């Protein structure tokens, strides 16, 4: 808060000279020839300048408050505002005006302050009289302060007596010692750029640069690495996980650069675990973000900006994986407990990612804890999971985790009791093992082995009325594993190298009656990236990634109709096609990208990516550029952003197969545009709006090469309250339309996953005493379907074939809406804690429509509804 100062006043006589008309008009005397002395700040009576006139004397001045709007507008200059005041014979200000407005709220602040002034009145011949004069306020930018806590990185324990030094232009301007809780505060800092340095005995010093805005406060959490010459345990990045519930703070993480993408959405640990309706499953939580459609029914799919699920790639620390979810989306293949964060890029992503038209999900696995041995056990009615982690030796740490479903043991009798035609349940498991070596905060190596396996074997004895081939033995076995190595080394403050390599296997083994599909691949993936700061404001990133994947395919399948074309009949109506093939998929890529900061607040990221696909023998050159511009001061930040780029996605392997695919294909292509803005309202509340347009062409259409085309456009809005000590939540709304045209001769149709409106409102609040309550509400346009009517009879198969409306996807299911609630209770004991949660989906039991059922000859139809009210109870213990 700033105070205005009275610095001068004009003598009434001078005033009269300048404004004689006013003096003549005065009803309070001071008429022609009257003289008034200059008012003074001090209470000493003024010396009489004329026998009968005394000047008013200021005797009360509370000062003027520095206006908030000036803070928001980022005004950094000292501003002077002159107010013309009129006082009555009692010395009260009865009128105040600003002849020369300065804006930014200064004028209002000056007027408001001047009306609280009080004077000993001017007198004429000993009688108090009215007077008019000028009063000036000077508004200097108020000081700010830096507060924070200092803690040990590995254990998160506060560090007392650490020295925090603040330098400006290399000169120490302030310093402080941390308290027992590691806290420090450095007040009264004039705005500007500061260098913050922290040192403590037994720890490596760190520093951070801050731009302190006028009147602002910067809250820091600084974590020091132990000096390995005095302490054996290296630091890890598990600090966020280590943060006990209830002590989450707004953490300024130094070293994170602004995103290379137009939009990068990051979900934090608490959000991942506590979003209602997702059962604490991180990757299912993704489905609540803008741009992500609600998948139909039990489909465990990620549908991003109207793209097909296979158009979105999933990475685990940079290594692509083939599956996100276990069967039916019951849970994801990487348990939430192992995740550090999930970065989600709905479009216009960096050149470091390629071979995708949709979005990118990059899952970051957290480092193992290093302070002591930890463990976790969780069980609900679906699966059981275990986790253990801790230090091994100097600089080494580990984590192992596993999960297995056990629904198969109790679901069978339930299914039999309900008379369901299928009386068995899938079995799945996944596993992860991490071994990490950390030499310093700048150099680390991690080895990770992880995988997933889903298996279902069932014998259906009833034949299917619409496709008799869908009966008999059904066997589905899918899975993958990876052995991954990650190495990161910051060679110097300006140079960093990241290496990522993985080998493994993916497999699908599917048999349904007479048809089967068996694929085994052995992908070898790698990525190398060099980041080099070339000059102030210029960083170059150069990298290459590679996918080489030998594979074997053995399949016997009916020919598939092309999109939009009614099938020739049930699966058995055409001679099946068979293939037995060994081959290798080879797809290397090169990319380079520059992070340019020409001015403060401006960021340009031009990049280009070159991909090669051995199966299509084509090179794809994909230039991209992203621009971000901060407007105004550091806080609250306003950013406008835009991006444009070319994106390619090679055909799926089956699309280039000599049997099931076509020869001579090119990559699918998308030209993506997006423009938007982000605005911080408070430290926790922010709003972002982004419009996008994707022009699709060269889309692979069975039987018609790359004749497909389409477009997707829409608007994504996110109002998000980031996690504080009590609450997190957001409102996400997406308005979009996704269209396809399979060939130039076909009509334009809506894409299968088009959803016009997607609204998600969710929040979670900590009530105290270990209780947390959350709710999620979703309102989403219904999914599309193609209406069918009475048509033909296939006498060979004994089934009716519908007449299918043209173009496809012409009708939409009713609006979907659902409310989910979640309650968590945690008990903390001395050495461990116990948690219980109840996650209730569809609390008001809305009968949402998930599909359309027809009778055997398509003369009648009815809606098939999905999820009823469903409680899910889980228990979890950890130490």
């Amino acid at each position, binding site marked *: 808060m700033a105070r205005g100062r009275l610095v001068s006043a004009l003598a009434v006589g001078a005033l009269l000279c300048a404004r004689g008309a006013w003096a003549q008009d005065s009803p309070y005397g001071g008429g022609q020839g009257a003289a008034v002395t200059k008012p003074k700040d001090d209470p000493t009576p003024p010396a009489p300048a004329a026998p009968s006139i005394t000047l008013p004397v200021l005797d009360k001045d509370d000062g003027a408050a520095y206006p908030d709007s000036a803070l928001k507008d980022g005004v950094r200059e000292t501003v002077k505002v002159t107010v013309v005041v009129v006082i009555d014979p009692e010395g009260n200000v009865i009128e105040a005006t600003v002849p020369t407005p300065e804006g930014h709220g200064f004028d209002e602040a000056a007027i408001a302050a001047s009306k609280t002034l009080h004077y000993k009145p001017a007198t004429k011949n000993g009688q108090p009289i009215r007077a008019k004069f000028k009063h000036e306020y000077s508004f200097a930018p108020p000081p700010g302060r830096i507060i924070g806590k200092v803690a040990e990185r590995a254990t998160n324990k506060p560090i007392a007596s650490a020295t925090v030094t603040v330098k400006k232009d290399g000169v120490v301007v302030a310093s402080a010692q941390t308290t027992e809780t590691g806290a420090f505060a450095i007040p009264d800092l004039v705005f500007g750029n500061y260098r913050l340095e922290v040192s403590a005995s037994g720890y490596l010093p760190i520093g951070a640069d801050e731009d302190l805005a006028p009147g602002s406060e910067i809250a820091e959490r600084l974590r020091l690495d132990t000096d390995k010459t005095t302490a054996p345990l290296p630091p890890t990045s598990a600090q966020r996980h280590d943060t006990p519930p209830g002590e989450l703070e707004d953490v300024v993480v130094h070293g994170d650069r602004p995103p290379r993408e137009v939009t990068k959405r990051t979900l934090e640990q608490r959000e991942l675990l506590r979003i209602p309706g997702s059962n604490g499953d991180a990757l299912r939580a993704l489905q609540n973000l803008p741009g992500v459609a609600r998948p139909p029914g039990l489909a465990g799919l990620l549908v991003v900006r109207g793209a097909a699920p296979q158009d979105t790639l999933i990475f685990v620390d940079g290594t692509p994986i083939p599956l996100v979810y276990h069967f039916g989306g019951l849970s994801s293949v990487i348990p939430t407990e192992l995740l550090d964060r999930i970065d989600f890029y709905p479009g216009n992503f960096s050149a470091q990612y390629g071979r995708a038209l949709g979005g990118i999900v990059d899952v970051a696995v957290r480092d193992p804890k290093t302070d002591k041995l930890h463990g976790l056990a969780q069980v609900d009615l679906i699966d059981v999971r275990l986790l253990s982690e801790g230090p091994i030796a100097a600089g080494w740490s580990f984590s192992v985790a596993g999960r297995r479903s056990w629904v198969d043991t109790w679901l069978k009798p*339930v299914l039999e009791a309900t008379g*369901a035609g299928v009386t068995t349940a899938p079995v799945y498991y996944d596993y992860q093992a991490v071994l990490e070596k950390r030499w310093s905060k700048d150099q680390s190596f991690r080895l990770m082995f992880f995988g997933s396996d889903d298996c279902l074997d069932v014998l259906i004895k009833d034949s299917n009325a619409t496709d*008799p081939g869908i009966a008999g033995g059904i066997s589905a076995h899918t899975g993958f594993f990876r052995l991954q190595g990650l190495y990161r080394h910051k060679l110097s403050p300006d140079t960093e190298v990241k290496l990522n390599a993985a080998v493994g296997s993916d497999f699908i083994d599917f048999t349904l009656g007479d048809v089967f599909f*068996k694929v085994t691949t052995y992908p070898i993936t790698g990525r190398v990236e060099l980041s080099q700061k070339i000059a102030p404001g210029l960083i170059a990133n150069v990298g290459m990634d590679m996918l080489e994947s030998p594979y074997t395919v053995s399949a016997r399948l009916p020919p598939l109709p092309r999109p939009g074309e*009614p099938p*020739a009949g049930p699966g058995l109506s055409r001679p099946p*096609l068979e293939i037995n093939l060994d081959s290798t998929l080879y797809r290397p890529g090169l990319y380079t990208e520059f992070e340019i900061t020409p001015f403060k607040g401006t960021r340009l990221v031009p990049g280009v990516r070159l991909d090669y696909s051995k199966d299509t023998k084509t090179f794809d050159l994909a230039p991209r550029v992203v621009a971000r511009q901060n407007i105004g001061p550091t806080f609250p930040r306003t950013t406008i952003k835009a991006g444009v780029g070319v994106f390619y996605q090679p055909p799926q392997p089956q699309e280039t197969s000599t049997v099931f695919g076509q020869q001579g294909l090119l990559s699918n292509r998308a030209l993506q545009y997006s423009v938007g803005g982000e605005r911080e309202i408070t430290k926790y509340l922010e709003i972002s709006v982004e419009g996008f347009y994707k022009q699709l062409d060269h889309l692979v259409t069975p039987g018609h090469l790359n004749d497909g085309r389409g477009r997707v456009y829409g608007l994504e809005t996110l109002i998000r309250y980031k996690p504080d000590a009590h609450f997190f939540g957001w409102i996400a709304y997406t308005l979009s339309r996704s269209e396809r045209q399979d060939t130039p001769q076909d009509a334009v149709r809506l894409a299968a996953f088009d959803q016009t409106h997607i609204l998600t409102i969710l929040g979670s609040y900590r009530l105290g005493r270990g209780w947390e309550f959350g709710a999620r509400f979703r309102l989403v346009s219904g999914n599309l379907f193609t209406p069918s009517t009475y048509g033909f009879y296939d006498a060979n198969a004994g089934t009716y074939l519908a007449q299918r409306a043209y173009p496809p996807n012409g009708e939409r299911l009713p609006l979907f809406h659902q409310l989910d609630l979640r309650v968590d209770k945690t008990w903390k004991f001395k050495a461990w804690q116990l948690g219980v949660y109840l996650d209730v989906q569809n609390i008001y039991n809305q009968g949402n429509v*998930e599909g359309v059922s027809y*009778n055997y000859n398509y003369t009648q139809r*009815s809606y098939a509804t999905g999820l009823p009210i469903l409680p899910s109870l889980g228990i979890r213990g950890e130490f």
Partner: protein
Amino acid sequence: MGRAFFMIVVIAACNSGDFDPVSKLTSVRVLATIADEPFAKPGDTVTVEALAVDARADRTRAMHVYWLPWVCNNPRADLYYACFAQLGAQLAHLGELKQKGLPLPPDTPPALLCLGLASLGQTKDVTACLQEGSKFTINVPANAVTSHPIVEGAAAPYGLSIGFYIACTGGVRLLPVDPTNVSGQTLPLGCFDDSGAQLGPEDYVFGFTRVYAYDDITNNNPVIDRVTFDGKPIVPSQGVIVPRCTSKNESDCEHVVDVQVPDSSWELVAGNSDSDTATHHEEIWAAYFHTIDKTKSAGRILFDPSAGRVDGSANRFIAPSVAGNGVVWIVVHDNRDGAAWTSFPVYVQ
């Protein structure tokens, strides 16, 4: 728990529905066709018989089975509805030749010419142009296989011939082509009553039957050895007599119906093996139909392609609560266009 129940609900939804089962006969239905050669050789003559049933309560108008006097050979992508454009073009050409008095192709069947003229709007009712009867002859062209585009991945080169029929309780007329339907999947024939009103699905079935032709691959129709009812063989001409159901519990009124198909019908599918060198045979299933309530399942798997004979493949006949007579049909299919059927009367006392 939520996820699991979700799965149950979806599974239940897939199997549920308040619709009548496909096995319940209440309208004009075609239950199957049988070709004397399920897989023909080029140049063969194949006789196809349709099993049509009129299960309407009111049979004032009699049901007739009519065949298009034309066989569609090797349509685009083996799509049955791609034949309609082929037929339309041929009919229009014939009609135009006739109208202009130009000579017709020498082997033009009169019935086809009749349809050609009808396509020009000269007549509405084309019933007379069609071949009536349950049997139809398909002459597989000698070049059926060689004229079919090579299909990469198929076990062997093949040809395809398709015959079309309509079981109708009135007169048959050509239907106008829907110009907005680019897919071409539109009905070419409709069933009309004497007043010219188009009849609905209760009164007609428009269908087709395929005959695949191979140079070397053959297939035999499955064989029905016998049908047993509560473990006893049925004499089809005599049928079975069952008491009406007086219990509220359906399971008290169940009778086991089983169709016996010999192992020899479970033929090996040539060239069909996966990477594990496992061989696959035909899939064989039995479809059940009834005019009197009811069977527990509409169809049961008899032989799985890899597992072989399926244990417990018998069906259940559930006696109705009122007395009456009806018929049960059992059609045995294999997944290579082979079929066999049998039926027996049921007398509910």
